[in-house]
C-alpha cells in the first residue's frame, strides 16, 4: 500500500546522476546482409553463450545509410542480447533509433591525430572503458569488440590541471585529453584520462590512462605506490607492480600490449 503523505515527507535526495565508464560491445556491420549477420552472430555466440547473454549491444550505424536498424535490433534481440543504442548514425538514423526505443551515443572525437581516413577497422580487442570484472570475460570470449575509431576532426585536446591533492573517494576524469595532477593522488582516489596522466606527487590510488582505448597513453608519476594502474583497459594491481619499480620518477606505457614500468 502506498502511503499518502498528508504531512509531506521530505526525501532529501532521491537520486543522483553519475558518469561511469563501462565496457560496451559494439556491433559493427561490415556487409549489409541481414541473413548473413543473423547466421554469423549465431555462430559467434555459440562460442561463448554466457558471455553474450543479456549483454548490452551498441549498433554502429556508420557504414551504411541504408542499414535497417530495426531489423538488426530484432536480430540482436533474437540472440538474447539487448540493443541499447546506436553510434555514428546520421540524423535520420538517430531519429529512427529514438522511434524504436534505442539511445544515441555521441561520436567519439579524435584523441590522437594520426589517422586521417574516416574509418579504420580493426578487430583488436580494446575497450571503450574499463570495468573491473569484465576483463576475464574479455579474454575468454573472442569478441567483436571494436575500437571506437576517432573521427576526422583534429581538435586540440584540453588538458585538465589539478593543483590540489586528489583525496580518497574523489574521482577525476579528464575527458578527451591529458590530466596533470600537481600533487599526490591518495589511496582510494581515482584519476582517469583519455590521454596521458602526469602526477607530480605520489600515486597511491588508481590511475587509468587512455580509457577510451588510446594505447599510446602513458602514466607518469613520482613514487608509484598505486592500487591500480591501467592503460587502454590493460591493468596491473598493486601486487603485480614490482617493488623495485616503486621509487622515484616512473613512466608506465604499453609496448605491444605489454604493460611496462620504467624509471625515468
Amino acid at each position, binding site marked *: 500500500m502506498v502511503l499518502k503523505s498528508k504531512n509531506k515527507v521530505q526525501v532529501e535526495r532521491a537520486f543522483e546522476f553519475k558518469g561511469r565508464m563501462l565496457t560496451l560491445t559494439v556491433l559493427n556491420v561490415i556487409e549489409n546482409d541481414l541473413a548473413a549477420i543473423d547466421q554469423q552472430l549465431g555462430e559467434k555466440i555459440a562460442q561463448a553463450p554466457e558471455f553474450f547473454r543479456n549483454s548490452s549491444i551498441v549498433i554502429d550505424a556508420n557504414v551504411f545509410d541504408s542499414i535497417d536498424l530495426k531489423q538488426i535490433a530484432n536480430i540482436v534481440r533474437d540472440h538474447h542480447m539487448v540493443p541499447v543504442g546506436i553510434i555514428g548514425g546520421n540524423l535520420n538514423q538517430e531519429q529512427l533509433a529514438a522511434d524504436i526505443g534505442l539511445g544515441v551515443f555521441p561520436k567519439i572525437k579524435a584523441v590522437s591525430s594520426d589517422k586521417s581516413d574516416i574509418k579504420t577497422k580493426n578487430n583488436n580487442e580494446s575497450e571503450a572503458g574499463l570495468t573491473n570484472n569484465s576483463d576475464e570475460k574479455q579474454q575468454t570470449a573472442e569478441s567483436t569488440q571494436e575500437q571506437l575509431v576517432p573521427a576526422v576532426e583534429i581538435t586540440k585536446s584540453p588538458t585538465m590541471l589539478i593543483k590540489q591533492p586528489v*583525496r*580518497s*573517494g574523489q574521482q577525476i576524469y579528464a575527458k578527451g585529453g591529458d590530466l596533470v595532477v600537481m*600533487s599526490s593522488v*591518495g589511496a*582510494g582516489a581515482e584519476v582517469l584520462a583519455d590521454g596521458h596522466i602526469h602526477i607530480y606527487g605520489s600515486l*597511491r590510488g588508481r590511475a587509468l590512462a587512455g580509457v577510451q582505448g588510446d594505447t599510446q597513453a602513458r602514466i607518469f608519476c613520482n613514487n608509484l605506490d598505486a592500487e591500480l594502474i591501467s592503460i587502454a583497459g590493460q591493468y596491473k594491481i598493486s601486487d603485480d607492480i614490482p617493488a623495485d619499480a616503486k621509487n622515484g620518477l616512473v613512466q608506465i606505457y604499453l609496448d605491444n600490449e605489454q604493460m611496462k614500468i620504467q624509471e625515468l
Partner: protein
Amino acid sequence: MAKIIVITSGKGGVGKTTTSAAISTGLAKRGYKTVVIDFDVGLRNLDLIMGCERRVVYDFVNVIKEEANLNQALIKDKRVDNLYILPASQTRDKDALDIEGVQRVIDDLAKDFAYIICDSPAGIEKGAMMAMYFADEAIVVTNPEVSSVRDSDRVLGILASKTKRAEDNQDPVKESLLLTRYSPERVEQGEMLSVDDVKEILAIPLLGVIPESQSVLQASNSGQPVILDEESDAGKAYEDAVGRLLGDEIPHRFLEVEKKGFFGRLFGG
C-alpha cells in the same frame, strides 16, 4: 565576525572531542569568547569531557526545533570565563539536524562569540556534514596509523567540495592537521607512522602533535579538558596548538624520543 572551526576526522576514537574541549578551553583562556557545539546527536560526549553533564537542560536540537532559545541551552563553563558549551541531544538522532536550523543557530552565535568550535561526529554522514558545512577552518584530527590517515584524506576531499565555502566559490576552508596519540618510541620502532609520513600523505599544514599520554584519559574521566592540566605533555602540546591556531610561531615539541627523555621521566609521558 566569528570564526567557525570544525574539529573533524572521519574515523572515530581519534580524539575529536578531546581536541574540541582542549582547543575551545585554550581559546577562552586567552580571552576569546568561545562556544563549543556538540554535533554528535545521539552519542553525546562533549558534556562529559567538559564536566558539565549534570547541567544539561536544553540542547542543540531543542534550539534548532525552536523548543528553547540559545540562552537556555548554552552552558557556561565554571572554570574558564568566556567559554560556553552547546550540548547535543542524547535522545534524538542526526536526522534532527537540518541545514536551515544549524545555520540559524550558528548565525545567532556568531553575533556574540569570537570562536565557534564544532565538534563533529565520526563518519561522513549527515552529522559530520552539518558540522563542517559552515566552517571557515578545519582541524583534522588524525592518529599516526594508516586507516585514520586515509579517513582524514577522505574528509579533506569533502571539505574541499561539500562545504558552504566550496559551494559558494569562496576561499577554501583552511585546513590543518592535528596528530594525536603520537608516540615517538613506537615511531622509532616502526610501529607507527611518523609526523613526516602523515604530512607527506595529507599535504596540509601541521597545527600540532599531541603525544600519547595517560593524562588525556584521566582528564576525560574527571571531566576536565586536558589543556587545563598544565603539567602534562598533552596539555602543553594543546597549548602550543592553540597558539599556532592564533598565528604564533611555536616550534613543535614531543616529536623525538631523545628530546622527550627528560620531560618523559619527569612527568611519566
